[in-house]
């Protein structure tokens, strides 16, 4: 496959840039819905499995997950076909102009295409597996995580392509929303520890709790789609998880969920620290180390209260590895931000766009 970049063209006067974006096409709002639907479905499904036991194909939580998978499949294809703008940021493959953010969502869609039959086959061959970290489940979660990450990249690129101040603000907010859902998907990998039903050693809990939030928080603190972006991302994440908990409690009243509730990780302090430390331009490894320590310390009282046993063996191995992971992900988060915004001075100068969306 040969990939070449497209040439810039001057936009025809008849084409309104305000109409030629992925928000107006409905792609971004529906992707947000898909990301939230998937998060709701997975947490509800775990709660269902814990207290209500095995289930059938079409349970309410499963339906939310299927909706998320359907959205990621349909919307990535739809956006790739409909978006015909020629900007320097789009990739040209044959007749197609491919939006980089949508391409990332499409990678997630491809993973979902693999996951759906593979998971069914896995269950038929090896029986019911009761862990979120079953290999096929991990592939499915990774695919839906890319919905959040790809949505964030898509929103950011739309912000760069837009020439209108109000539109740029809108894409700044949608970047924030996708960052919060991506943080939600990142933290979903800890769900079994949050429900206190781990099927893997406890050392993974402090390890991943120290490391995983750092990537999103450093990325969004560097991009700064709105002031205090990492803090707002963490606040939105907490709000989403609070609403999910509320939903679980409500549905339990109708015998549609169990009694077991997940712990909600405290990431607001980490978000605040990310915003402050990125402004101070700390070396990335220091940034990652400090954020890892803060994530661990901020959650320690919650972990104690939830009777999750961070025993000495788990801490001795999990904490150093978690801090190392946090440093690596701080590096990666900053590198992704640098790829999206190589020159912060140019951040508000729109990239020129040629032609329009084929409607």
């Amino acid at each position, binding site marked *: 496959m040969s990939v070449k*970049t497209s040439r810039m063209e001057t936009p025809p006067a008849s084409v309104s840039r305000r109409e030629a974006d992925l928000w107006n096409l409905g792609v971004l709002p529906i992707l947000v819905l898909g990301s939230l639907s998937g998060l709701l479905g997975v947490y509800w499904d775990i709660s269902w499995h814990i207290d209500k036991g095995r289930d059938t194909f079409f349970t309410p939580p499963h339906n939310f997950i299927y909706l998320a998978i359907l959205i990621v499949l349909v919307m990535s294809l739809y956006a790739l076909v409909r978006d015909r703008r020629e900007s320097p940021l789009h990739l040209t493959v044959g007749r197609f102009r491919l939006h*980089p953010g949508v391409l990332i969502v499409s990678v997630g869609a491809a993973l979902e295409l693999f996951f759906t039959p593979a998971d069914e086959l896995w269950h038929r061959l090896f*029986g019911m*597996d009761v862990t979120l970290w079953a290999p096929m489940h991990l592939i499915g979660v990774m695919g839906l995580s*890319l919905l959040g990450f790809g949505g964030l990249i898509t929103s950011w690129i739309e912000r760069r392509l837009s020439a209108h101040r109000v539109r740029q603000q809108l894409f700044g907010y949608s970047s924030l929303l996708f960052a919060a859902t991506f943080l939600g998907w990142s933290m979903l990998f800890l769900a079994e520890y949050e429900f*206190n039903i781990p*099927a893997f050693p406890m050392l993974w809990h402090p390890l991943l709790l120290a490391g995983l939030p750092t990537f999103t928080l450093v990325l969004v603190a560097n991009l700064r789609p709105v002031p205090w972006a990492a803090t707002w991302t963490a606040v939105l994440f907490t709000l989403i998880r609070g609403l999910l908990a509320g939903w679980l409690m409500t549905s339990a009243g109708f015998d549609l969920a169990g009694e077991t509730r997940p712990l909600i990780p405290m990431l607001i302090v980490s978000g605040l620290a990310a915003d402050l430390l990125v402004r101070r331009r700390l070396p990335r490894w220091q940034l990652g180390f400090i954020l890892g320590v803060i994530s661990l310390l901020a959650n320690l009282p919650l972990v104690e209260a939830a009777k999750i046993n961070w025993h000495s063996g788990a801490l001795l191995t999990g904490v150093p590895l978690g801090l190392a992971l946090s440093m690596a992900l701080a590096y990666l988060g900053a590198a992704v931000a640098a*790829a999206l915004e190589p020159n912060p001075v140019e951040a508000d100068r729109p990239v020129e766009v040629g032609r329009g969306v084929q409607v």
Partner: protein
Amino acid sequence: MRPFEKRYCFAIGLLLLWGAVLADHTENGRLGSFGTVHIVEQGAGQPTRIEVDTDPAVTGRHELHFYIFSREVGSGAPLRRLIPPGEPGRYVLEIDFPQPGRWGVSMRYGVGLDLYYAFVETVIEPQGLGTKKFATSFRGGLDSGTPRYVQSVGFAVFGLLAIISLVLISAVLRHVKVRQVGQAQT
């Protein structure tokens, strides 16, 4: 058929039936360790000590996950605790049973899909004092005939797909970076 032949046939039939039940039993659940459970009871609302000794000792410093739930109607949320081994194969949990009555204690160890479960049931008395002893066995949760390496193969597939995805995403982001730098220079 003569009467003594009938008796032989009946005995052989019983033997085969017993063998079939035994074979089915061993195939349905892969056997892990045997467990001896001591519950040292102080009564409801007081710390109760649960000691589990596994034989052969569970190796690899596996943690033991306890899922303790009341079997009475209208009882509260279950209790969940995870305990590392104090010494190889020995696990000790101290826990308050909030109310008297029948309680189930489910235990499991293992990693991922390869989990082993055991269960005992006890009655907690309001003023109970004393030690109860139970013998149990840990049985595998995977279907019979499923080789243990499937989990490793599955993770290898996941790892491969993760690497391919990361490479593709890196290529896309590199393209965006190159084009933005070019745009800024013009």
